[in-house]
């Protein structure tokens, strides 16, 4: 407003009213538009578009299903039924007069019931009221006032009781009439049921398709403002009572809204649809499905997948994480994906989903259906990560490397040096990781120092080792025979062996070292002694004895010693530079004292003492003692690596990246990079020698890294309420203890135990399973606990026709008990199972048993103790000692049901319900089996009749 304009206005006015009105109109329209914009902005949500497209996908799937269903319909039968229905309907029509009458009666009775209900209600209510008043006056001590109410109350109660009885009469009448009506209509109803069996599924699909229609009503229901009533496009959610989200100061019920977009996650039939419409993998076994182990209603989504399940703002809100760089690029283009900000628990990329099993199943050695995680655990165990890194629950395991307490008898000093320097030069499959020649210590200056350290460590180990004399002398044997033995008796269940490792390269075969170049490594006498009795050299070794004869041991040793590593054997390790040694010692001492004092301290030591001292310091520095028993290092010395128990929850900003900016800012990216090259974080970072990263390089391949990353990601600190966790009962707890022992000794390397493992059985003996290690199916039910205990302690031959040998393990008493307990509890059995002292026979039963024994010709295979033919089955004279009678019955009835591969015939038919020998015991299969069982048990009861070999 300029000064001149002002004069034009009316008196008392600063502005022109017309102008103001116009302005108001403009502003009003502007405001209207902003309001509409606001409503639209609120209404249009990304997930609504997803759902609209989902309806189309559903249409398509339903259409396909309907077509498929139509094809399966038996049209002829349907027509037939339809005709029958017509006929039946006519019959009903003929009786229509009767029907009408009944219906009339029914409505009358129903009226009576209604009236009676009302009357009873009144009496009941009055009785209640009078009772209250009566009791109330009594309480106040006004007995006079109370008395009339008592009378009233009693009267009402009486009326009520009478009314209830009348009601029952009416109800009885009603059901009688209903029955009559039903009887008339019965045939039609039955026929309709039959019809529905044929076309019911299709009808349901058609109805579902109809409900899925996007008609005007659909749009009305989902339009702005009206959509608060009953929308079909809406947020879907599960709210969990037993699991929580951590909101730092409070645990709130977990709310997962993932199904808002992942609409068909729980419905089979969408497996080939693009995300987010795909069905969950293993929907009916593993998760999501109602009958699966983890139904969505009980476990939600983010419990396993991580992320912010309650957020549906847009694709980024729930913290989706891509599985690969390609997927990331795709998401960036499609959804403007970016790294989640400040989300403590981002979603696990789908390839790591199994990590979450650990959250609840951490006490289990092997998680059912969690194969990837199990392989990760297996790797962590065989590479011995738990040696240097504390992982809660892994403390009980023995050190991953062999003991060095008597090392001098096994290998030479020169070998130790070269081996420490570069284990993979000698054995490319070595599980001993490489500490030297890595990306952060390959500078000549560092190499020189490392050479000194390796020399010093070797001197320390060698000088501290105790004497050991092998108890057998090696003499050259037959290498071919040795090779065959290695293949057949079971060595390859734990060891990969050069020359015979294919096709046995498997995770389990890494339990023991890969055997290559043995001829350039060990002392022959030591090898033979070790093969015959491993515990003689190292008491706590898991390597069992195969009860080898001297000849067998020498044959195997000959084969192994023939394998030489020429290149490695010729290596001469560089001599120690004593000046550098002294410098290193001074540098170490001067961490806490002045350099001059440190120098003086070093000078006090003799030349040899200095080397030993540096060796001791270096072993501590590199953590050799974490994996190997070394004299002078106590077993309770803490591990040198960081604790990994909760590493899956470690905030990402606490991971050191150094100059490696190309590595993604997620835990899994860091783990992957770290496992690939643990020393990479030092690259480009100026660090003095003593501060260099010491995590060694295991030269893992990508699959191994992915599996180990899965394990690491599962080590989280999230709180899981008791109600949401897997809670073990007593039986499971005991079984789990034993499973740990079984895992330590790699029982499943040979045996399939209740369907798990059995690697040797499946590969080497894959063509003839019966010749391989037996599958253990509810082993605790099969054998007596005391027999199992004795057997594991002192192995005896059961199946003499086998080449593979059950080894003799050096179990401790505790381990033995745990193992036996494990099998017994896992089979849901009691430990003590009474062995009958003497079999008691029914009249004529024994004769029948003998007849069957002969007819079925049991001794054809079970020759042991009957003739000198080669046995095809276990010696039945041991059955009494070994087998539980109830199991014998089960076995006889259906052996194939227990061991699918067994050559034992199904004498009593496929289900154990046919007669095996006609005319015996009235052809009653149960009686026959019972008699046979008694006979077999009796065989072993003739004391002293037969001894184990």
């Amino acid at each position, binding site marked *: 407003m300029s*000064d001149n304009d*002002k*004069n034009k206005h009316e008196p*008392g*006015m*600063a*502005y022109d*009213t017309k102008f*103001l009105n116009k*302005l*108001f109109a403009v*502003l*009003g329209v*502007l*405001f209207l538009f*902003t*309001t509409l*914009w*606001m409503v639209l*902005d609120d209404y249009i949500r990304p997930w609504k578009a997803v759902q609209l497209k989902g309806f189309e996908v559903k249409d398509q799937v339903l259409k396909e299903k309907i077509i498929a269903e139509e094809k399966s319909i038996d049209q002829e039968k349907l027509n037939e039924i339809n005709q029958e229905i017509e006929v039946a309907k006519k019959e009903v029509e003929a009786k229509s007069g009767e029907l009408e009458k009944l219906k009339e009666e029914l409505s009358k009775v129903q009226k009576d019931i209604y009236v009676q209900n009302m009357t009873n209600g009144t009496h009941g209510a009055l009785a209640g009221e009078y009772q209250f008043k009566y009791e109330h006056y009594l309480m106040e001590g006004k007995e006079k006032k109370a008395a009339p109410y008592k009378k009233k109350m009693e009267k009402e109660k009486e009326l009520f009781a009478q009314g209830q009885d009348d009601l029952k009469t009416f109800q009885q009448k009603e059901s009688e009439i209903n029955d009559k009506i039903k009887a008339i209509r019965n045939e039609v109803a039955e026929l309709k049921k039959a019809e529905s069996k044929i076309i019911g599924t299709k009808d349901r699909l058609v109805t579902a398709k109809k409900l899925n229609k996007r008609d005007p009503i659909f749009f009305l229901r989902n339009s702005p403002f009206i959509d608060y009533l009953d929308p079909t496009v809406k947020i879907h959610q599960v709210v969990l009572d037993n699991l929580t989200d951590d*909101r*730092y*100061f409070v645990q709130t019920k977990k709310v997962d809204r993932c199904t808002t977009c992942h609409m068909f996650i729980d419905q089979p039939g969408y497996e080939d649809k693009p995300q987010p419409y795909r069905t969950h993998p293993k929907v009916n076994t593993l998760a999501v499905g109602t009958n699966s182990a983890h139904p969505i209603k009980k476990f939600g989504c983010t419990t396993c997948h991580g992320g912010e399940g309650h957020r549906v703002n847009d694709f980024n809100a729930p913290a989706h994480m891509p599985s690969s760089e390609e997927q990331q690029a795709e998401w960036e283009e499609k959804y403007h994906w970016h790294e989640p*900000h*400040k*989300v*403590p628990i981002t979603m696990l990329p789908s390839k790591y989903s199994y990590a979450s099993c650990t959250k609840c199943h951490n006490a289990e050695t092997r998680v059912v259906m969690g194969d990837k995680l199990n392989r990760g655990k297996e790797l962590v165990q065989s590479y011995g990560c738990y040696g240097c890194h504390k992982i809660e629950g892994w403390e009980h395991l023995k050190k991953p490397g062999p003991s060095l307490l008597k090392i001098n008898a096994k290998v030479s000093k020169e070998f130790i040096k070269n081996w420490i320097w570069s284990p993979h030069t000698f054995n490319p499959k070595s599980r001993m990781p490489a500490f030297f020649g890595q990306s952060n210590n390959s500078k000549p200056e560092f190499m020189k120092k490392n050479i000194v350290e390796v020399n010093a460590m070797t001197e320390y180990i060698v000088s501290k080792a105790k004497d050991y004399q092998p108890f057998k002398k090696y003499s050259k044997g037959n290498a071919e025979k040795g090779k065959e033995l290695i293949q057949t008796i079971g060595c390859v269940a734990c060891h990969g062996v050069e020359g015979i490792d294919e096709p046995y390269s498997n995770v389990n075969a890494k339990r023991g070292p890969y055997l290559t170049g043995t001829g350039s490594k060990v002392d022959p006498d030591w090898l033979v002694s070790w093969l015959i009795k491993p515990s003689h050299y190292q008491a706590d070794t898991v390597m069992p004895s195969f009860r080898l004869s001297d000849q067998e041991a020498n044959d195997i040793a000959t084969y192994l010693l023939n394998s030489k590593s020429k290149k490695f054997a010729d290596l001469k390790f560089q001599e120690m530079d004593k000046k550098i040694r002294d410098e290193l010692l001074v540098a170490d001492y001067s961490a806490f004292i002045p350099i001059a004092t440190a120098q003086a301290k070093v000078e006090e030591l003799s030349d040899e003492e200095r080397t030993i001292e540096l060796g001791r310091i270096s072993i501590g520095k590199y953590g050799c003692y974490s994996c190997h028993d070394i004299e002078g290092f106590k077993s309770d010395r803490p591990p040198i690596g960081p604790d990994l128990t909760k590493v899956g929850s470690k*905030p990402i*900003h606490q991971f050191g990246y150094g100059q490696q900016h190309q590595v993604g800012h997620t835990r899994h990216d860091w783990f992957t990079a770290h496992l690939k090259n643990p020393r990479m974080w030092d690259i480009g970072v100026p660090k003095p020698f003593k501060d260099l990263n010491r995590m060694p390089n295991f030269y893992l391949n990508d699959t191994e890294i992915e599996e180990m990353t899965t394990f690491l990601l599962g080590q989280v600190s999230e709180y899981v309420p008791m109600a949401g966790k897997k809670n073990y009962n007593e039986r499971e707890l005991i079984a789990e203890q034993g499973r740990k022992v079984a895992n330590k000794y790699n029982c499943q390397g040979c045996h399939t135990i209740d369907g798990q493992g059995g690697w040797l059985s499946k590969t080497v003996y894959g063509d003839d399973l019966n010749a391989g290690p037996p599958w253990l199916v509810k082993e605790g039910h099969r054998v007596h606990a005391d027999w199992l205990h004795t057997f594991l302690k002192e192995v005896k031959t059961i199946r003499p026709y086998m080449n593979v040998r059950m080894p003799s393990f050096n179990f401790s008493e505790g381990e033995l008990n745990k193992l036996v307990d494990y099998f017994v509890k896992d089979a849901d059995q009691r430990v003590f199972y009474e062995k009958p002292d003497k079999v008691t026979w029914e009249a004529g039963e024994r004769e029948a048993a003998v007849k069957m024994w002969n007819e079925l010709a049991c001794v054809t295979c079970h020759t042991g103790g009957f003739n000198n033919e080669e046995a095809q089955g276990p010696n039945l004279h041991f059955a009494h000692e070994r087998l539980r009678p109830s199991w014998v019955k089960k076995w006889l009835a259906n052996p194939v049901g227990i061991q699918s591969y067994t050559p034992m015939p199904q004498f009593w038919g496929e289900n154990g319900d046919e007669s095996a020998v006609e005319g015996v015991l009235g052809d009653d299969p149960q009686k026959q089996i019972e008699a046979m069982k008694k006979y077999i048990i009796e065989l072993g009861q003739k004391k002293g009749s037969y001894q184990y070999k």
Partner: protein
Amino acid sequence: MKELINIIADPIYSFSIVIALFLLSIKYIKFVGSKKFFWIALGGSAIFTVWAAQDKNFWAIITWPDNIPISILLISMGWLTWYAIYKGVNNDARTEKGEPPLEGTPENREKVWAWPNLVYTEMFTIIIGTAFLVVWSILFKAPLEEPANPTWAPNPAKAPWYFLGLQEMLVYFDPWMAGVLLPGLIIVGLIAIPYIDMNPKGNGYYTFSERKFAISSFMFGWLVLWIFLIIIGTFLRGPNWSYYGPFEYWDAHKVVAANNINLSEILWIKWLGMPLPKNILLREFLGLALTLIYFAVAPYYLTKKVFNFKGKLGKWINGGQLGGYLKSMGYIRYSIMVMLMLTMMTMPIKMYLRWFINLKYLVFMPEFEFNI
């Protein structure tokens, strides 16, 4: 160019630059109050903003939803300040010519109806304001973050924008001073202004020349010590409260070497080469003495040379009153005014001491939680 701006935006330099600009604009207030200046300033800042916004670090920091209200504040504050000066300078020119101020002309003294002149315009403002807020909230979603996680605090952890000036003071002062005493004095001082200011001029109209001292000293506190520190706190303080230039990436690992030492350590260890005395008062006597001198000698100088309108500066601030402030205000008002002035000036003094001699505290008495 960006490098240069990154360097000079550091408060070590920019603070002095801002003070210099402030003094210049006081000196050339007539130019500042001209329309020409307005257009130059508007054009200049528009060009700068457009140019600077090309930089992704600059863009990221000004479009961070938290910072948008501060940008709005800066724009409106610039406009309002200039508009007041423009009006004041205009009136001053009229006064010089012997005319009454614009607000005092007969036609401007005429009265108008509250309806529709006031109520209608108020409603317009309400509509515009609401529409603006709606559009703003649609375009820039509320910067809501994760539920507070005590183990993962944001870095930098910033106060609400209106307190960022105070938070900036924490860099230079003990929390007790910067967090309690000085803010308290600011509030008390602001409340006290109407009781201290005895100058009847400028009532109902804009003017600068009749209220030079009041306007300049207030504007120094407001623009330099408050608004400018908010700008620093908002735009130039990144992770770990380190300084980041407007075009610099906020790298949380930035390391700034800053070893600050106390005056007592400078005196005893550095100059006298002896250990700190055990006696606290002896140890801190220099700092205590300097503080006392500041609050005792400075008022004497101000009274003798400035506020009696005798020195050069004194003559300039004389808004037409006779005698001196001491005479016109009375002893109590005068001493309160001087104390507040001096306390306000401790802020820039302490800042310069930090930058020039790495001074941590003038007086360091952790025994009594007394650090200044």
